[in-house]
Structure formats: C-alpha cells, structure tokens
C-alpha cells in the first residue's frame, strides 16, 4: 500500500512540476534558514566540557571602587587582581584551583633559519592542564617545583610545535620566549574548546593560546598582561605596583566536586574578603560569586543576542514557508478532488484517501529536507565568511543533518494534515456529477 501511494505521489508531483518545485523550494528555504541559525545557536550554547562543567567554578571577588560598581547594577569584576589570585592559590581549600592570564611575546626558534613570530601566551599554574582536561601529545604538565621555583618551562600547542619543531617530539628542547630560553616539557594535541570558556575576554570563540608558561615567572620576567585589564584606582606605573594594584586581569577557577566543598570554598572566600576589609581593601558589600561553566557562559552572554534574534526570526520564517506550503497543497488537492471522488466511488475508504495524500506530503517534506540541508550548508558558509573565529561553529554534524530532515518531515506533515483531511471529507456525489 505504501509503495502504491508512493508511486501515486511521484506521479502527482510530476504532473505539476512547477508547483511541486515551488512547494519543495518553500520548505527547503525555510529549513535552510532555520537550520543555519539553529546550528550556530546550538554550537554556541554547547557545553564545552560536559564531563565536568558542573564542577568547575569561576571565582569572582568584588574589589571595586566603593563609589561605583564594576558594572551596573552591582556586578563584581569578572577578573581578579594579581595579589588576590596568588593569595587564593596559596590559602584556598580547593584540591584544584588555577589562576592565569593572557600575555603576548615573540617566539624565537633555536633554528636560526626560521624567523621569529608572535605567540599568544597563557601564563598559568600547572593546574590548568588537569583542570581543563587538556590532551597531551608528548610530555605533560610541568611539576609543582617548576611552579614553586619559577623555572623557565613551557607547554606548546600542537600548532606551535608544528611551527617550531616540525611536529616532532620536542620535549627537552628549548625555545626562546621573552628573550630567555624555555625548556619544552609538553606538547598538546590539537585542542579547541568551543566556546573558550576558561577565558572569554576578547572573543568567546577564539583559538586557545600558543604557549603556556608558569605564572610564578610573572614578577621575575616582568611578564606584561596582554589581555583585558581594568583599573579603578590609580597606582604607580612600575611593574611591582601593578602586581600590588587593584587592577583586575587574571582569570580564577576552582574545581569543587561536592556541595560541601562548594559551601566550604564560598565561606573561605567570604572570610578572605572580611580579612582584607580590615586592611582597608574591599570596601564594597560582600559580593563573591562561584559560577560553574554553563552558568558562567550564560552570565557572560556567550550566545550573542543577535544570534537569539536571528534564531527567532528564522523559525518565524519557517512558519511562513509552512503556511505557504499548506495553501499550495490545499489548492492542489482540491483541484484534484474529482480524482479522489472517483477513487472513493470505486471503493477506497476515506482513510485510504487521507493516507494517499499524506504520503505525497511526506515525499515533499523529505525532498524539501534534503534540499534544505544543501541550503543549510550554503548558509553556514555564508555565516562563517561573515563572522571571524566562527569556523568551529559552522560545521554540520550528522545529528544536525538528522534534525534538519526530521524538522522538514514533521513540518511538511503538519502542513499537509489539514489539506489531506479536507480532501478526504469532500462529498463523492458532487464530484461524480460534474464529470
């Protein structure tokens, strides 16, 4: 029965190729537009580290101007001062915590034939690597003693290792950064968390950094912060006063596995701030926060409001395409009512007529879905051409392709049920009479 109806459907579609193309085109355009926006939205709001996103917490302390909040109405700064970050690392009760910031320098390959090139540096504790589950190709994180004694060691990104050493195992070799020699202790596998949740400054979808060096080198090497720094209080401009200043430029994360740990850490933070208040710092009311990865992404509005608006408009667009298709189907089916009348007179039941038309609708939906998938691909190409740093966000995976075809089928059936129902309800006698 299904195949008979399928044949009828194909015949009917072929009889009216322009109209069929119009209907398939309408649903394809609707699917293409909505799936393009949905893909970007879905990947933007994806969990970048599902295995532990609930247990990684971003820490915020409010050391800001007593007269003016960091951001209205009373938001605490996203980033932290150097002195607080280092203190929390020393005193905090969390098994795993990490303070870090972004810097910038030039890498000088030991091979004199290769020219120096700029690199983005993450200045961090060794905890970065276990905390964010970074995959290692060679070697591993530097040791606790490297952090404690400020050794010049470095972990390279896969890309940087490719560029410096042609991709070979470079552990034990050295590279010149900040015009000093750094020993390579580890090389990461290609790694691109999307969004780059651990540091959202600049853009949320930026690539991870090129090299990683110990944060304890900040003072001895006078490593200049290269990310976003905000200050509210003027301070001396030499390096040591920057480190002691109220300027915020470090990101601070802790891993807390149980609610007890979370509560303990929260009260530790409150105690720390109360202690600092006695020294005349932290004059604003207590405003400390722990936010896990997904809460942090939400707090930082990683999904741009533009993308939410586009998603909403795209689904309204899909609705227009469906209404459009419904109108065309209705017209088409009613125009053919006489045929159904004859089938009914020859003994076909209403259910059979309904089924026959539904199969036709499903065929249109399926074709529309396939064409829509092609349009989605085109749409994603357009989107990635328009935005920078969106490459990771514009890939169609099988799940999304399945969703696209699914939406197309469901949408077509929804649009087709009423016309199919109308046609199976028409009176037999009237159509036979006019033949």
């Amino acid at each position, binding site marked *: 029965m299904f195949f008979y109806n399928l044949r009828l459907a194909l015949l009917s579609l072929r009889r009216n190729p322009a109209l069929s193309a119009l209907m398939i085109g309408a649903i394809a355009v609707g699917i293409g537009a909505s799936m393009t926006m949905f893909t970007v939205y879905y990947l933007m709001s994806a969990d970048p580290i599902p295995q532990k996103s609930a247990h990684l917490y971003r820490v915020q302390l409010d050391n800001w101007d007593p007269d003016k909040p960091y951001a209205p109405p009373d938001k605490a700064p996203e980033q932290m001062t150097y002195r607080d970050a280092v203190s929390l690392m020393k005193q905090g009760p969390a098994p795993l915590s990490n303070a870090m910031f972004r810097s910038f320098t030039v890498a000088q390959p030991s091979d004199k034939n290769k020219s120096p090139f700029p690199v983005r540096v993450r200045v961090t504790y060794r905890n970065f690597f276990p905390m964010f589950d970074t995959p290692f190709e060679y070697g591993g994180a530097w040791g606790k003693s490297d952090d404690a004694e400020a050794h010049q060691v470095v972990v390279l990104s896969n890309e940087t290792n490719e560029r410096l050493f042609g991709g070979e195992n470079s552990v034990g070799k050295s590279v010149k950064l900040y015009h000093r020699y750094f020993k390579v202790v580890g090389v990461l596998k290609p790694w691109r968390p999307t969004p780059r949740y651990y540091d959202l400054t600049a853009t949320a979808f930026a690539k991870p950094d090129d090299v990683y060096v110990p944060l304890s080198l900040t003072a001895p090497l006078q490593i200049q912060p290269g990310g976003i720094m905000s200050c509210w209080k003027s301070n001396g401009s*030499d390096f040591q006063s920057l480190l002691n200043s109220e300027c915020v430029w470090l990101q601070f994360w802790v891993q807390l596995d149980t609610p007890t740990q979370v509560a303990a850490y929260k009260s530790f933070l409150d105690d720390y701030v109360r202690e600092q208040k006695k020294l005349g710092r932290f004059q604003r009311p207590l405003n400390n926060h722990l936010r896990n990865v997904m809460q942090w992404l939400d707090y930082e509005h990683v999904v741009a409001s533009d993308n939410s608006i*586009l998603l909403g*408009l795209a689904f309204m667009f899909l609705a*227009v395409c469906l209404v*459009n298709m419904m*109108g065309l189907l209705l*017209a088409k089916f009613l125009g053919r009512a006489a045929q159904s009348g004859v089938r009914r007179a020859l003994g076909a039941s209403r259910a059979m007529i309904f089924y026959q038309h539904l199969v036709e609708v499903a065929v249109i939906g399926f074709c529309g879905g396939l064409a829509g998938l092609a349009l989605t691909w085109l749409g994603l190409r357009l989107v990635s051409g*328009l935005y*920078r740093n969106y490459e990771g966000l514009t890939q169609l995976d099988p799940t999304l392709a399945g969703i696209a075809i699914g939406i197309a089928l469901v949408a077509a059936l929804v649009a087709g049920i009423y016309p199919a129902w109308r046609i199976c309800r028409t009176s037999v006698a009237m159509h036979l009479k006019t033949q």
Partner: protein
Amino acid sequence: MRPILSALLRNKTGAVLVVIQIAITLAIVVNALFIVNQRLALIGRPTGMDEANIFSLYSFGFTSNFRAGPTIQQDLRTLRGLPGVIDATPINLVPMSSSGSDLTLTAQRGENVPGVDAGIYDVDEHGLNALGLKLIAGRNFTHQEVDYVDPEKDYTPPVVIVTQGLAKALFPNGGALGKTLYWGGKKPSRIVGIVKRFYGNDYSGHIGWSILLPDVTTAKQIAYVVRAQPGQRDRLMPKVEKMLGQSNRDRTIMQMSAMSKTIAGHYREDRAMAVILIVVIALLIAVTALGIFGLAVFNVNRRRKQIGIRRALGARRVDIIGYFMTESWLMTTIGVVIGSALAVGLNYWLVMHYAVPRLAWYYVPAGIGLLWVLGAVAVLMPALRAASIPPAVATRTV
C-alpha cells in the same frame, strides 16, 4: 466588491492562509529592515579619522639589545621622510582595533567625584595630522610638550586634547577649553585643544570619548599610524613593512593593517547581522510572492469556466483583471492590518529581551506599501492569464 467577498468566503481556508502568511511576513520584514538600518547607520558613522588613507602597524622589540626610544625616533624619521607619506605618529594602541585602554577622568579634584571613562591615546605633535583629526578649538601639542616616557615611571601630562564628545561629558555647561581635568580625581591636566570627533574604542563609556596625551611611551611595543597621500596607501604598506623590518633585527613588525580594514573588523558582527537579515528578507519576500502567485494560478485554473461565463455575459477583460487584483488586494490588506499588530508586538518583545530600540513608526506603513505592491505584482500574471480566457469556454463543458 461583494461578489469577490462571497467568493473569498466560500474558500475561506485558502484566503486565511494567505492572510497569515502576509501578516507574519510583514512582522518579520518590518523588524528586520529596522535592525538592518540601525546597523548600517552604526557602521557608517564617521570616526573623525582620515579612514581611507591611513594605516597602522605595531613594532615589537623582543631582544635585550632593543632600545625603544632611539628605535621609535629612527622609525619616525624613516616614515615621515617617505615620499607619499603625509605624516606619521607613534600611538599606544591602534584606534578602532580590538585593543583599548581607558581611565576615569573627573572635572573636579577629589576622591569621590563622579567621573567619565575615556579612551586614552598617546601621540606626539604629529598625532592630529597623522590621524587626520579636525581641531575645532584651541591648539595642537607643541614639539616641546611631547615627552618620551619610561613605562616604569609615573607620568601625568600637563596638557591634553579631548574630543568634543568628551568635553561635553566632562563639562556639560561648555567652556572646556583651558579647563583642568583630573585623572581619577587626583592628578591634573589642562585642556589645550578640542577635536571634533575621534572614535577610539568601545571599552570606555562612549566610543567617541577619547583623550590625546602628548607622550611616547618607550615600551617594547609601540604602534604607528601613517597617513598616506590619496591613492598611495596600498603601495606604501608593503614598503613600510619591509623597510622597518629590515632596519632593526631586534624587533618584529606586526599587524600591518589599513584603517578601513581595522574599522571593518570593528563592525564585523554588525555587518554580518545586516547581511544575514537582508538575505532573510529577500528570501521571505520571494517565498511569499511565489506563494501568492501559486495560489492565484490555481484559483484562475479552477475558475476557468466561471470566468468564461462572466466573459460571455459581457464582462470586459479589465473586469476580470480587476476581479483578481481586488481579491488579492483584499487578502493583502487584511494581512497587513493583522501584520502591523504583529510587527509592533514582535518589536515589543525584542525591546524587552534584547538591546533593540523601539521601532520607528514609519517602518510599518513602508512595509505595508511594500506588501501591497508585492501582492499586486504576484497576482498580475495570473490575472492577465485569466483575462485571456475566451468566453467560448463557457459553452464547452456545460
């Protein structure tokens, strides 16, 4: 009118579907066009700089032999001496790039005085000319006022130049020229000049609130802004990169970029939004028009006999065309009436949830006009086809 209405009412569903389609189309088109125009206005704002002819680059010293002060002076001599270059200035950060630095300024001395956040740009006496800024009051920096400052040292410039926007923000009652402003309420600087407009970065309170300082920080990293004579920019850029790169091996030249490109990068997301919305509007209009067209073709085909009879009874071709056009106009009109309410509702939702301003009223009538035309155009061809049905059709199958 009446027969058209009753014909419409006999086939309610089809008409209702067209009406719904037109209503949603109007709501989307009106709001999307509004957002597009907002973004285009944003992108088109003049920055106050000579956007078309300037380019920027960074010099980054990375060896222990690197001496910032002499290098910068040598670079400036090289740049200013190049044929085709109007002027060049050192600057702490490239305006309109993703980097920015801002500080709080106040109009009075004191710890708890409300302040204004301004974007900070360190230039020398060639700054105004190299950026192409227009001085509207006061004077430029003099050569004597420009200090080469060690980044380790604390520095407050005795004189500054501010933008008109910043001057108004600091001194709402006017007369900013010659007045003193305070850095974080403490250290004073006197305003000696006001430029009409200079867009720096978005991090401060307003993109147009910028302040120029007469100093060159002798840090490892320094940017240069070079202004070329019209038409010379693209020739000069690779030349400058090569010359400066070869002149000193202790540093590297990075991020060479035409200002027009830097500005385009600044507005990338806004342009992307505008382009995507324009594509959506175009597709939506096409789908709706084709939908109306398809339905009209069908209606004409279904009513061939009826049309033939009307023609046989004396209706002129014009009457037949008029019939279909009126029918379409009726549906479009009901659609746009509902659509206007939807458009306002959608805008209300966008205003509530996102940073979208309230819709300017004239977008709704403009959208209505657009859809009226669209409805008429879409139905014209089928109507003409209907008019060409000969009266003889009436006699055939009866």
